[in-house]
Structures are given as structure tokens and as C-alpha cells.
């Protein structure tokens, strides 16, 4: 895991000396070049037609996942197992068969506008909820024509609405389907991509800068920018930094949280109204980005609270917001979710909204766990469009993970977590939960060659805990 080799550590402290041997200390390293290909065309909105229903996404999702699932089902339960549509279940009677469909989770506590309106009459004040699961939730499997309730081995609290799955079982007399086993689409087959170079190259992932509430974030962020740019550190560190090829900022750069709706005295001198705060934060971000962009390629993704559209997929932040930084060719605005290929490594990720949404509607709490589940479900955001707003797609569902990524990340998570997921066919996927920089002051460095990753924290001794806990 440790990337520092002898070369970088040996030069530590060398600069605690008089300026002799300038040739050594004033070496300038040139940054390593790396191939890049953007694969996010499917997330760009070409036409914006909101007159469609959302049912089309589900139909497309089911059709596409059916192909992936059929293969898996054959692998798992044998080639002669019967796959049936729901309307054919009558003929089966009580024999085991497999049915495929989209899961719908019937939740009592899910916010519904109808309930809100009806509750108004009863005048029962409900406390605001953030978690909407309950023990009374039920799972229902829907395919193109019918739906059936699922009971049995499929744990209701570990799935969410919108996941396409295959279940093996039989119909019991009650009109419900008794599940013996289930199967997800899973990751697709790995594509062997030989690495071109043996140099160490790494990318840096960052998220949740939250410059609108930038109290003590500024100095760590400046340290980060200096570190990437090669100002900071001894020669070894700087040489090491020259191997960083790209910085990816995964959302919530301008703003990281919703506005506080606390009741306060009316403030006639409106210094902190929303717009001015956003504008100031955008200018700050532009200042940082221009420093970053002058020395490295930067991809910036929009986040939940950034000035971009609310629906998934979020469109890239407009370059006009960054007048100084957009003068550099190295600044790229990319959509959320984002997929690209850097140095033959496929990188896929979001700014964290799907993960947060899933955590609200089921009992999965660990973000890295949720991330793994979404990879297994082969869908970036299964709760779209049910509880996470998304564009009403017609003939495509761009959130399906059809090709296995190498690095799969989610931004704006409470802490850094990472896991190397091993798939059934030998796929290796590095799952990363990127912590919010405004809280953790740390970024994530990922080595492209061996998929190692580790966080790098930027701090001052003020922010150190004085307690003797180490």
C-alpha cells in the first residue's frame, strides 16, 4: 500500500540546509503524461423532453438486464432451469422455476404526496424523517405485465426498489412466490487490458470541498494544491508528485450541504444570502482551480448542492463559472455520474447521491457495502427515478453498469473507505468512498498500476488532537 519508496524518503530533510548544490535542489520534474478517454457521452443530455413518463426507463432497464441476468442464471443454477415470465406461472404450479423482474419495495414510510395531503386533514404532525424503512416493508417483483409478492430468502432490508434480479423458487398457493435463491446481474466479464507503461502513475480523487462554508478548509486546500503542484515537500516528494496524472473532484465543490432553515432574527443587512455565498464560493473555487489546472489535468464533477441541474445525470459545471481556470485546456467539466478511461484503467463513479439515497431506504448503512451492492446489482443508481430524481429516459438507461470498471468511487462520504472487490470471474474492482474534504481534509490517491489507494491528509498542528491517543 505504501507508495513511498526509498528515493522519496531519502531526500527528506535535505532542504534543511544551506542552498548549496542548486542543481540538485532546483531540479524540475516534468509531469508524466497519460492517455485519457472520456466514456461519459451517455450521461450528457442531448434533448430535454420532460413530457414522458418514467415507466420507459424501467422497461428499458428490465430488457437490458434480462440479457445479463439470463446468462448468470444459466451459470448459477444450471442450463436447464426454467425461466418463466410471471403470466406463465400458473402452468408451473409448484415447480421450481426462475422469474426475472424489477423489485419494488412497498414501504409504508416512504414519503408520498398523497399521504401528505390526506394527513393534513388529520392534523397529525409528523417529525421529519430521514430513514424510511420499516419492518412492514414488502418486496414485490414486477415484470412487463404482472407483479407478484416475494417472500422467503430474499431479505427485504437489503434491497431497494429498482433492482433487477432473478429469483429461484416456486409459487405457493397464496399467490406469493417463495424464494429459495436469488441472483443479481453482477459485474460483467473482465476485459484484459494490458498496461502500457510500468511507471508508477496515480490519480488523485477529491470531493466535498464545500467552499461556501469554508472556515478552516482553506489552508488544507492550499496545501493540497501546493502539494500537487510541486511546491510543497522535499525533492523526493516532488518527484513523486510528478507521477500524479489527474485530479478528479467528485462533487460538492461549491456547496456541500443544504441551507440551514433555523429561525433567526430577520437580518436586514443580508450579507449571507444564498446567491452571494454561492458566487463567492465559485470565485474561490476558480482561484483554486486555476492553480491546479496550471499544472495538472483536472476533472470537476457537479454534486448534489452544486450549481448544476438537480436531476441525475447532472450536467457538467459550465466553464463560464471559472473564467480564469477555463483558460487552461487542462480543466474539464464532466457529468455526474462519470466514466472515463485513464491509462487503460476504467474509472466510474458518482458524487454520492445514489449511495446516500439507498442508505435512506434500506438497512444497509456502510457506504462501502452499498457501493459493493450497486456493483453487484450492475446499476449505478437503482433508486432512480423512484426516490432519486432523474431524467425521463425513453430508450436507454445510462445507469446500467454494462462493463466492469477498475475503479469505482462515490464522493462525499463521511469517511474514507476502500475495498478491493473480487468478482466471480476474476474481476478486480477497487471500491472507494471518498471523504468530504471539508470534514476530513484528505484526498485519495489511487495507483493505476496496482490499484492501491490510500488517503493523504492535509492539516496543521492546530487541528491535531492534543490527546495521547496514538
Amino acid at each position: 500500500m505504501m507508495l513511498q519508496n526509498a528515493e522519496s524518503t531519502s531526500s527528506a530533510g535535505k532542504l534543511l540546509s544551506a542552498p548549496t548544490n542548486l542543481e540538485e535542489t532546483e531540479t524540475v520534474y516534468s509531469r508524466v503524461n497519460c492517455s485519457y478517454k472520456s466514456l461519459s457521452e451517455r450521461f450528457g443530455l442531448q434533448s430535454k423532453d420532460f413530457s414522458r413518463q418514467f415507466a420507459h426507463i424501467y422497461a428499458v432497464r428490465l430488457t437490458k438486464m434480462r440479457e445479463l441476468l439470463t446468462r448468470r442464471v444459466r451459470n448459477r443454477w444450471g442450463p436447464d432451469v426454467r425461466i418463466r415470465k410471471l403470466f406463465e406461472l400458473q402452468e408451473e404450479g409448484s415447480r421450481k422455476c426462475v422469474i426475472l423482474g424489477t423489485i419494488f419495495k412497498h414501504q409504508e414510510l416512504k414519503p408520498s404526496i398523497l399521504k401528505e395531503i390526506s394527513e393534513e386533514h388529520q392534523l397529525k404532525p409528523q417529525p421529519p424523517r430521514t430513514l424510511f424503512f420499516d419492518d412492514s416493508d414488502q418486496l414485490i417483483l414486477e415484470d412487463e405485465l404482472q407483479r407478484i409478492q416475494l417472500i422467503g430468502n430474499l431479505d427485504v432490508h437489503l434491497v431497494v426498489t429498482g433492482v433487477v434480479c432473478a429469483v429461484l423458487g416456486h409459487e405457493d398457493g397464496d399467490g406469493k412466490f417463495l424464494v429459495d435463491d436469488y441472483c443479481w446481474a453482477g459485474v460483467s466479464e473482465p476485459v484484459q487490458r494490458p498496461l502500457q507503461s510500468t511507471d508508477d502513475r496515480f490519480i488523485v480523487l477529491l470531493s466535498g470541498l464545500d467552499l461556501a462554508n469554508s472556515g478552516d478548509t482553506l489552508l488544507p486546500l492550499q496545501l493540497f494544491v501546493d502539494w500537487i503542484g510541486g511546491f510543497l515537500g522535499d525533492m523526493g516528494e516532488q518527484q513523486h508528485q510528478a507521477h500524479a496524472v489527474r485530479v478528479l473532484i467528485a462533487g460538492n465543490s461549491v456547496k456541500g450541504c443544504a441551507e440551514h432553515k433555523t429561525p433567526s432574527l430577520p437580518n436586514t443587512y443580508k450579507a449571507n444570502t444564498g446567491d452571494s455565498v454561492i458566487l463567492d464560493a465559485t470565485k474561490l473555487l476558480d482561484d483554486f482551480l486555476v492553480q491546479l489546472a496550471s499544472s495538472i489535468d483536472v476533472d470537476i464533477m457537479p454534486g448534489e448542492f452544486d450549481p448544476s441541474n438537480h436531476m441525475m445525470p447532472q450536467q457538467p459545471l459550465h466553464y463560464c463559472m471559472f473564467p480564469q481556470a477555463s483558460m487552461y485546456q487542462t480543466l474539464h467539466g464532466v457529468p455526474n455520474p462519470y466514466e472515463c478511461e485513464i491509462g487503460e484503467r476504467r474509472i466510474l463513479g458518482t458524487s454520492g447521491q445514489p449511495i446516500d439515497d439507498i442508505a435512506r431506504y434500506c438497512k444497509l448503512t456502510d457506504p462501502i457495502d452499498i457501493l459493493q451492492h450497486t456493483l453487484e446489482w450492475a446499476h449505478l443508481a437503482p433508486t432512480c427515478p423512484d426516490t432519486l430524481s432523474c431524467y425521463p429516459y425513453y430508450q436507454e438507461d445510462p445507469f446500467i453498469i454494462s462493463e466492469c470498471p477498475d475503479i469505482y468511487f462515490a464522493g462525499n462520504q463521511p469517511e474514507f473507505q476502500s475495498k478491493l472487490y473480487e468478482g466471480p470471474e476474476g474481476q478486480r474492482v477497487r471500491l472507494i468512498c471518498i471523504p468530504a474534504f471539508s470534514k476530513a481534509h484528505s484526498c485519495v490517491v489511487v495507483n493505476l498500476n496496482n490499484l492501491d489507494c490510500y488517503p493523504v491528509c492535509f492539516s496543521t498542528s492546530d487541528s491535531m488532537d492534543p490527546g495521547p491517543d496514538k
Partner: protein
Amino acid sequence: MGGMGAMVEMDVGSLRLYLQNIEEYVMDEDKIVTYKWLSKNLDIHVNTAKQLLYTFATEQKDDVHLTYLVGGVLCDGTGCKIQIVRQEDLEKAKAEFKALTSEHVYSVQKARTLPDLGALYAVDVHMRDENEDDKRLSAITCSHSVLRQQEEIERLRQKARAATSAVDGKQWPTGPSVNKRAKALNNKEVATGDASKVESGSKKELKNSVIPAMFAAQTCKNMKDEKPKAAETLTAKPKASNGSSVFFSKQTEKPVKPKVSVSKDSASGLSSKDSEGNKEEVKRASKSHQEKQEDSQSKIKLSKNVKCNITKQTEKKGGKGKSINMDTNELLPAKKRKRILVISDSEDSSGDDILDRDDAEASDSSPLPEVSPQLHESNTDDVIPPTPEAELKKGRKRVRKMKDKTFMEEDGYMLTCKEYVIESCTDSEEEQTNENEKKQPEENCEPVKSDTPKSPKAVSKEPPAKKKSLRQKTKQATLTNFFKKIS
């Protein structure tokens, strides 16, 4: 590291010089000197700056205090850390690291204890604005971090404008949203995406209309050319060079369509002044559309000067100016109304055909010019039938009066009789009264009787327009009346 060739040493003279500079900054000016600030000020490599700070600090010993930067791999395996520490905490901080990759001086200051290390951020901030060259003093260069070419930036901007205008064109601008856009036009100089989108929104509205599109194409080109130039030239150029097109575009403007009027004003100039006028025009246009179509029709045919004056007035004045202009519009063409409407009828309908808009207002506006001329035609129709006799001149008020008639009798005696005579208020028909006089001695009552039932009808049926013209003629007539009575 060994194995290097000849060591390049800093010569003693420049070393002394640098150290003196540092001493000046720290001791005399009581600054916090960070390595980055020093390297920018002295134009030296960052690593050299770090070494200089160290050298300075060792010379000064206890008079100055340092902060160090330490970085490395943490002992507890949670990754790496880069940290600024005060010199007294240095050893403790270093103990946390399993392997140290960096350790150098971060800053030098005279103060014994920096209460908040966050102040170190403020030191470097202001330097950033001055030049962009600080990257050359760093230890890493990036070959592909080049500036975009100016043409590329222009191309991107135009693409953004076109893209966003394509989106905006689909949505019909309602009143408040149009105003919002017009307001945003005011903030054109603010470097946000909204500005370009708003301009492109108004530009799209330009492109949507066909008749003004001919002029819009010209203005668009001018706008595109002028965009990179200074904002001041923007105000001057459209007004100067597009003068004629501005006139034409304003003439064919249909205020019933607020969209088009918005575009017209955006064509006339992108300055903030004009955008204010834009807002006024929009409000005026929407108001006129709702209330007074006749006025709006007349507005079209106002002279060029009047029109431009009005827009200039709207630019200068605020909402009050707008209402004043509305009133002046009403008063001025009051006389011309009839004539204008007849002409504009054909023009508007032809204009609508050419425009061929799929918007509702095209259908709304086309009945409007037809309605008003019809109204006038019906007026004339209403008036014409009740005035069949040629003797009864149109629109004259008939009054039955008692008058003294003096005439010659057979015997050559002059007689004066009192008779009821129907005569018009205006006395310009003396012939008629003479005729009446001739008839009257024979049939005194009958023509009177026959006339009386008809005349009240004529009087009552008169529409207000006739009364107006009557009044006009009566006004004129009284003047001549005055002279005739004397003679």
C-alpha cells in the same frame, strides 16, 4: 545524492543579498515569510527558498520562529499526511510518521507563537492575483497545461450561446421570466453562465422571427464580432452601424408579441442602458398587448424619430417614463388612427403570413387588425343609411328653430313671418336654408314634419366618431360662422 557532477553553488554575494532581504521582511516589516511568498518575491525556485529560510533561521537562532512542513506515511497505517507544525511540536509530529518523506521550513516569523496557523493561508493569497507565472517556480512542469487559444474560447462561447438559445427557444417566455432575463441582461458583465445563457436566450428570440431576422442576422453578426471587444464599443457600435436596421426593425416591431419586442431591443444594443430599455419595452409591449391593441397598432407607424425618442426616454426614465410615453403614444396618433388602421391591416396580415409563427399570438394578432377596421367600416355603414338625402349633409346636427322669414309678397309688400325651420347648427348651407325657405311658404309644415321624424333618428344613431368629426367641423364652422353672420 551522490554521483552528481559539479555542484552548482549559489554565490556568496547573492546569498548574502537574499538573507538580507529575508531579514528585512521578517525583522523590520514583521511579516510572516513563507517559502512560497519568498520564492515569488525573489523569483527563485521554491526549494531554494526553503533552504534560504532555513539558513536564515539558523543564523538568527532564537530571534525568529519557524513552522515546518512534515509529510510522510503514518505509523498507524491510515495513509499519509502532510502537516504544518510549529517548531516546538516538530519532534512530536515526526514521531507519528513511519516514514518521513518531507521535512522543510514552511515559514519564518518573528512572533513567538502564531495563535492560528490558518493565518499562513492569508500570506500567500494576495500574491495569487498578481501573476500566473508561479508555476514556473515549482518543481513540476506539466506539458499539456497550456492556455486555450483565444479562437477556441470564442468558439466555445458561441457554441454555448447557440446551445442555450436552442433550449430557451422552446419555452415561451412568460411575463416574469422575460423580465428576469432582461434583468439578467443587466448583469452581463458578471462572469457567470447565466449571462451567456440570457444573451443567447434573447438572441434566439431574435432568430425566431423572420422579418426582423433579416436585420437580426446583421445585428447578430455585429454582436458576435463585438463580443470580444470592450463593452464600451458594444454600446457605440450597434447604435452607429446598425442605425438603419434598428429603424427598420423597430418599424416592423409588433408590440403585441413581447418576444419579438424583446429581441428588437436586444438587437439595438447589449449595453446595460439598452437592456433597461429592453425591460421597459417588454413591460410596455406586454401591457399594450393586453390593453390597447389600437394604440399598439398606431405605435408601429410612428415616425422613426418619435420611436427612437421613446426608447431613449425609456432608457433614461424609469417606470414613470414608461407610462408617460404610453400616454404620448395615445395622444399623438389619435388623429391618424383611421388612416393607419386601414394601411396596417394589409401590412399586418401579410406580415403574419411571412412570419408563419407557431405561436398563439400570431393568431391573436391577426384578428386584431381585422377587428378594428371592421369596426370603422361598420361605423361608416351605420352612419351612411340614415343619411339618404343629399340635402341633409352628413353628420350635421339638425335643430328645429323658430325663425323670422322676410319675403316679398305678390303685391310687392315685404312680410315677416315666424316659421319653424329645420336647419343645421352650422350655417354653411345657406343654400339649403334658402331652399327650405322657398319650399316653406308653400308647404310649411310638411317638409318640416317629414324631416323631423328622420332627423332625431339620425341624431341618435350617430356614433361617437361622427360626433367627433362633427365637432371638428362644427368647430371649424363656428369660426366661419362668426364671419358670415357679420356679413
